[in-house]
């Protein structure tokens, strides 16, 4: 291990160095107190991360395709005529997919192509409005909840109370009280929005609250507070950037979860809408009495709506997770 000067091969050229190189120059000030790491840009890394995730790209593609059909599908040429059984006083019957009915027809003889895309249009519109309201309320209430310490016990009590009542029952009882919306599509829509956003913000609000409390107690924020940063600086620079990842996931996953609760509410017959919706298509297809016979004779009435629903919810959900991953600075490596 002893490194003798003469034993090292490169020593020869060392001996050739000019003596002038042995002049003391001292600290090179321009390099003093500099952090020399690779340049890092948050948003660039977010995009890089997102585009690296092939499944997320696929999900975006699926979402775009589904959105396209949701908007333009109902205008396309699948026939809207009812299919009926010949002879038997026009009793409706299901037909397999054909060039006339692209997705076939349902058990009640309706064209599935139109039902699904019109239903999706309604469901997505509802989900979008409800999500926006829930996100807004969730961020607002969660922000106050986490930031104002005095509010904490009250809000915890409220969330305890709500968790003690089966929310479905509340929905149903509230719908009984709301002004009757039979036949009025707009009123029905807004009634649905109302009950779905009644407690929908709760999840986001408590996530916000927990995260804010966690971040608030981190050293960097305590230091910032001790140095006298103003409230808005703390919220804008200390809290928000750390919340982006969690918020974005919750926000995007609101859409599948809204669709999901719509399906359940319709199942309970507790939904005021009269229009066709994705949940309705699904529940009609899978009504318990029909499943056995449907499986044997016209399985497409079950699987086409199911597949569309799965694609839609999973694509949105996964995309939300990918965005959350990409916006999390801890994963930028």
């Amino acid at each position, binding site marked *: 291990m002893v490194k003798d000067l003469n034993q090292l091969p490169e020593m020869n050229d060392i001996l050739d160095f000019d003596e002038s190189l042995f002049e003391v120059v001292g600290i090179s000030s321009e390099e003093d107190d500099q952090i020399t790491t690779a340049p890092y840009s948050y948003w660039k890394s977010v995009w890089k991360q997102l585009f690296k995730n092939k499944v997320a790209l696929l999900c975006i593609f699926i979402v775009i395709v589904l959105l396209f059909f949701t908007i333009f599908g109902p205008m396309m040429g699948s026939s809207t005529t009812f299919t009926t059984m010949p002879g038997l006083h026009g009793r409706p019957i299901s037909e397999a997919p054909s060039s006339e009915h692209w997705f076939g027809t349902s058990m009640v003889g309706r064209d599935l192509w139109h039902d699904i895309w019109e239903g999706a249009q309604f469901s997505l519109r509802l989900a979008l409005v409800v999500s926006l309201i829930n996100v807004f309320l969730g961020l607002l209430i969660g922000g106050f909840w986490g930031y104002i310490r005095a509010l904490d016990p009250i809000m915890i*009590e409220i969330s*305890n*109370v*709500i968790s*003690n*009542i*089966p929310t*479905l*029952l*509340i929905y*149903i*009882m*509230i719908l*009984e*009280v709301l002004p009757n919306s039979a036949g009025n599509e707009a009123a029905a829509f807004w009634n649905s929005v109302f009950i779905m956003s009644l407690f929908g913000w709760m999840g986001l609000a408590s996530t916000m609250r927990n995260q804010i409390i966690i971040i608030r107690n981190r050293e960097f924020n305590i230091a910032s507070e001790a140095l006298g940063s103003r409230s808005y600086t703390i919220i804008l620079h200390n809290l928000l950037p750390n919340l982006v990842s969690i918020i974005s996931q919750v926000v995007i*996953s609101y859409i*599948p979860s809204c*669709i*999901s609760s719509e*399906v*359940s509410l319709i*199942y*309970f*017959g*507790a939904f005021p809408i009269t229009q066709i919706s994705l*949940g309705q298509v*699904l*529940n009609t297809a*899978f009504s*318990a009495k029909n*499943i*056995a016979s449907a*499986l*044997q004779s016209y399985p497409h009435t*079950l699987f086409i709506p*199911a597949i569309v*629903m*799965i694609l839609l*919810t*999973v694509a*949105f*959900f*996964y995309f939300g*997770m990918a965005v959350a991953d990409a916006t999390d600075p801890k994963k930028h490596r």
Partner: protein
Amino acid sequence: MDFTKLLTFMAEDATDYQTQIIISYIVIAFLVLAIIFIVLVNHNLILKKDTKFRRFLTHPLFYYSLKRIGSACVSIFLALAITFCLIRMQDLRSVYCPANDHLTAEQFERWCDAKMRSIGLSGSLIEQFLTYFYNILPIPKEICTSINELTAECAQTRFFTMYLGSSARDDTIPFIAEAIFTKLPNSFRWGAIDIAIQLIIGYPLGIFMAKYQDRLVDKIGKTYIILIDAIPGLLYFYLIFSFFQQLLIWNINIFPMRFDPDDFSSWLAPAITSSFAGIAGIAYWVRRYMLNEINSDYVKFARAKGLSENRIMFTHVLRNAIVPLSRSLSTAFISCLFGSYFIEALFSIDGFGGMLMNAVQTKDFMIVQGVVVFSAILSVISYLIADIAMAIADPRISFEAQ
């Protein structure tokens, strides 16, 4: 033990009823005094000498549980108040007084008034509220259960310990407490299997996902969790149900679809269908808590000690990850009793969830209210279980502040 009897008809006749009342008042008074005593001891106002008894009463966990139950009672009280108000906003008269052709309009009104009074639905809102709470308190009481249609007088009374109300629709089991206890066993039958499946599959799945992070098992597990999270619950219930139907069509008869309380094999199909979501939930949290622990210093030190990765995972890490999970035991207990609306409807199980569902659809709101009260009581019990489970899982909790 016959719960139904305990909760609904403790007394057989009037003299029995008298003694019951006295006993229950003594019990309640004793409980109240005990709680006051414990609080006083804990605030160092009485019994200042350090004895074993005092140490038991001031055990942090003991007092903490008491406080938690106290605050749970407050939130349950509020929850009940909200449900109460919501229900009073409904048109209950039409639900409880079905049209009767034998009666004149005047007779009908009188009968209906009397009936509403007997079930505590007349008078001012405050009056109703007080009656309601008196009825659900565990004090023996005499309730009129049937009204003579012509004279509008009480035709039959019954003694109750806790009166949760009566059904407006279901004549076979008119009293809600009774109804709950006849339906619960059915829900419990398949619910218990459901929980067992969840634990048996969920825990190992979570452990393996954490152990082989980012490898194949983890990826499959993650995909599964994402699918369960994203797809509407009802849809995959439908799909699994369809799968069982398809098995029947193929003449594979392992899972009978018709629920039969006496046939174990028929409990499996609903249990399996329902367990999918639970497995995903358990696996997710087990994985997450384990990964949290994996990066901790004691794991590094255990590795430096020369322990194998398996040993670290299955003894050290798992033991620590179980602490936060032990709390979920109580939730499991509750959900195992309650069943699920959808599952019970799909498999036509005459259980708790199905009853609730039925009540909602027929607007039998008193049942809804009874169910809320009942689930509130259970949730208090579950808080207790959760605290005990945590204390067993983590010695620090019972040690703290001592």
